[in-house]
């Protein structure tokens, strides 16, 4: 053993390993398994997963879906009140079609996320607690159906966090989450 600049001598594969290095290897292997196991278990047991159904959809088809959805919905001063549990939102340069939307706290909605033009970032946080925030990538050509249940009433602010052009910074919208019936 010795220099990394010289070929190792003799049968280097069979040289013993220092006891503390062996212990560290064991710790590392166990930690690796914990990292994998926890992530895997959370997809089944946890409440926060970036998982939903995905459909191929052209930009025109997605526009038509959102138009049909908006016709069926109520328009109020606060925003769109969806007709059922389905909520449609599309990113476009530079705004969010389908926002603002009025939802009930504690009710599970299926968010249909898509884009009309380029990639966008769907970044949501309650106005009062900025550390609670989630971020999803939105792609043109794909409709992503992600279930979501807002547990607390309040205003949830949406900003775009994928660069989508020079006007990118002005792209924002809101969820208005009201006290639910239940």
């Amino acid at each position: 053993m010795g220099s990394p600049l010289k070929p190792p001598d003799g049968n280097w594969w069979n040289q013993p390993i220092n006891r503390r290095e062996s212990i560290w290897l064991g710790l590392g292997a166990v930690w690796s398994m914990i990292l994998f196991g926890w992530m895997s278990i959370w997809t089944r047991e946890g409440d926060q997963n970036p998982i939903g159904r995905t459909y191929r959809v052209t930009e025109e088809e997605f526009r038509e879906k959102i138009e049909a959805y908006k016709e069926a919905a109520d328009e109020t001063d606060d925003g769109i009140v969806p007709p059922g549990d389905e909520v449609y939102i599309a990113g476009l340069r530079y705004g969010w079609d389908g926002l603002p939307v009025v939802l009930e706290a504690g009710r599970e909605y299926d968010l249909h996320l898509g884009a009309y033009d380029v990639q966008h970032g769907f970044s949501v946080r309650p106005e009062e607690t900025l550390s609670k925030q989630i971020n999803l990538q939105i792609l043109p050509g794909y409709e992503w159906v992600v279930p979501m249940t807002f547990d607390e009433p309040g205003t949830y602010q949406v900003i775009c966090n994928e660069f989508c052009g020079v006007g990118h910074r002005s792209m924002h919208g809101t969820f208005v989450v009201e006290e639910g019936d239940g």
Partner: protein
Amino acid sequence: MTWLFDNEYDDEGFRRCGVTGLDVHRSVENHAKLFGLTAVVALLFGGIFAFTVAMTRWEVIGLLPAEDFYIHLSLHAWNLLIFWMIFTEIAILYVGGPMVLGRKLPFTSLAKIGWGTMVAGAVAVNYSIITTSAPDEAPLLTSYAPLPSSPLFYAGVIVFLLGTTIAALPFFVTLWRERKRRTGSLPLVTFGAFVTSIIAVEAILGGLVTFSYALAWRLELIATIDAALYRQLYWIVGHGSQQINLVAMITVWYFLTHVVGGAEIVSEKVSRTAFILYLFFINMGAAHHLLSDPAVTTGWRIFNTSYAFYGATFASLIHAFAIPAGIEAGRRKRGKGGGLFGWLTSAPWKNPVFSSVVFSIILFGFLGGITGVLMGQLQLNMAWHNTLATVGHFHATVVLGTTVAFMGLLYFLIRTMFMRRLAFPRLAAAQPYFYAGTMSIATLMLMYVGILYGVPRRTSEVVENIPGTEFSLAAAAPLFSVFGIFALLAVLGGVLFLVIALASLIVGERIESPEDNADLLPDGGAHGTAIDAVDEDDPVHAYEMRGTFVLCLVFMATFVVAYVLNWYLLSQLWSIGA
């Protein structure tokens, strides 16, 4: 410029390096210098935009309007993340291959053609970014289709990647010939360089496909481009290129801790196994960028983001022990290691080569490595994705890790290949402390504002004002002030490096005899002497490694705490996903 290439060689073109004991051929040395100097030019150019970008994100200053900001950000990314790194890495291949093996550089004309092609590609990319005009947008690093970039941009990247391939050929030829010349194992540094080069080939192939696809679409040879497919292809090169940086950096760690710190390899088997794990698993890390994407399945994401059950993370944990253990055991063997940490306290901390490398090891691990695993967990990624915390992560890896290590390497090259004393030696001794320290704080602030306030990356204003709404992320403003001040200081630390490096090259005192470089050697001892000889009765693996063990336990504890905290924050969110 010829004065930079005028070392004295024997009739065969070789000289014996007084520091490493290597037989250095003129052809290897001069080409390594050429790539190293070019890298410094890219560092200088890209560094200018570190200043303008940071001073725009610190919205109290708000230096640039949006349209300029994205162009500056693109120039910052391409020159530092790609050109500075890759030019250095070609030099590392030449050092790790032919120089360590004591051979000539074969096909030097290919090295020159490769260099010229890389320079042409880099100039084209820079020109296309600076001249961005509608309908094109600034590409940033990713040029995410279908947001269009200039056709010249895609073409420039392709040219640069081809140039890199050509420049790497002499390295591959060297290894091929070495294999035919003799049996037995390669030195560890050569082995690390070889693994780096294989990962580079994978990245380059991915890059050629990606940018050809985008160019064909931009020139309207094909009608549409699939955003999800583009992302998947892009990250083969986008993340793969960063894995080249990682593996090259670790190779430099082994190289320099040995030469200037007296480290030895405590287990060839363990260290080489770790490199092999990288070879198989590290490129799966490209999936880290697709965790919050709609178009890849859950199983694909979990398998790939975990590098198949954390194979590459395990490899990094191995190096995290093996390298400090090498310093500890090596120094104990030299009689420099009383107590738990005597091997560290007696180390050559005033030598900027040594301090740079050690800071790189520590900061890469604690700030870059841990955050990389955190954001690479499928669910935690939702809290990190596209926030400044992500930017904090990769400034910890490629700045605090790779750039700091490469600065140490360049100090070393100035001393041992350009044969110049460092100008302003006291300033040079302090520079790694100042740069690593200030940059660490700036990096931590990026992580905090990203995770705790959800501040997005890639935007010119969001804290003081979001156009068209009352809402803003104003609560993050105090941390941004800390960021702004320390980013400024870090830029100053980068300027110091460039001033010291360039002044050393231009007016630095010439090193005439091996004694002039004796201070680089660990404890003044020479390499190639008895201390380096293998002594069967005194194997290095038998020396104590308890100091390293304690440090590694501290690292693991930090890792676990950060992991638990991140998961706690995530579990506080409302219910998301199926």
